[in-house]
C-alpha cells in the first residue's frame, strides 16, 4: 500500500518536505551572509540548526506512521525513534550554544558600543 502511494505521486511532490528543508537552509544562509546586525546573524544560526533538526525528524518518518509515544510494544507502524532521540539531543545543544552566542553579543556590544559587524571589524585603541 505504501509503495503505491509513493509511486503515483511524482518525485517532487513526494519529496516536498525535503524542499522545505532546502528553503529553510537558504533563508538561514541569507540571514547569516548578508545581514549586518549580530542579533540577526544569531537568528540565522538558530534557524539553520532548526532546519537540520527538521531534516533529521523527516528522515525518520514512516508512511502512515503513528506518533511514537504511549503505545510502546510490538507495533511496527510507528515512526523511527532514533532520529527523534538525536534531535532531542541537538535541540538542547542548540539552546546552550544560543545562550553562549547571545552572551558574546552582549560582551561585544559592551566592548564596541555597536552591533554592526562592519564597525566591529575596525580595530580600536
Amino acid at each position, binding site marked *: 500500500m505504501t*509503495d503505491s502511494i509513493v509511486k503515483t505521486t511524482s518525485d517532487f511532490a513526494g519529496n516536498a*518536505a525535503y*524542499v522545505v528543508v532546502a528553503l529553510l537552509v537558504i533563508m538561514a544562509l541569507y540571514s547569516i551572509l548578508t545581514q549586518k546586525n549580530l542579533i540577526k546573524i544569531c537568528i540565522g544560526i538558530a534557524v539553520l540548526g532548526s532546519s537540520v533538526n527538521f531534516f533529521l525528524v523527516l528522515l*525518520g518518518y514512516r508512511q502512515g506512521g503513528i506518533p*511514537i509515544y504511549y503505545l*510502546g*510494544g510490538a507495533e511496527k507502524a510507528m515512526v523511527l525513534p532514533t532520529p527523534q532521540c538525536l534531535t532531542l*539531543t541537538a535541540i*538542547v545543544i542548540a539552546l*546552550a550554544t544560543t545562550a553562549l552566542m547571545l552572551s558574546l553579543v552582549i560582551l561585544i556590544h559592551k566592548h564596541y558600543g555597536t552591533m554592526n559587524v562592519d564597525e566591529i571589524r575596525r580595530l580600536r585603541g
Partner: protein
Amino acid sequence: MKKTIFIAAAIVLGGLLCEMFEAIHPFGIPVNTEMDDYILVHALSDRSAQNVVTSMVFDFRGFDTLGEAAVLFTALSSVGALFRDGGKRE
C-alpha cells in the same frame, strides 16, 4: 549587487540541495529500520517504559545524554565565566 550575487548562489545551492534530496530514500519509506524496530518492540517489554523516545534517550543511548549534560554544563560555566563579578576592577 551583493543581493543579486546571493540570489544566483542561492538558486544554484537550492538546485544542488534538491538534487541531493533525490538521492536519499523517498519521503516516508526509510531503509534499514532493524535497529528502530528492535527498540520499538523491546522498549516496553524489557524496560517498562511506554515512551520509546525517553527510554532511548536515557537507556539505549544514555552515553549521548551524558555528553549532552556535559555540553549544557560547559555552556553554563562559559556564560558564568564571561559575566563573572570577580574582576571588581582590580
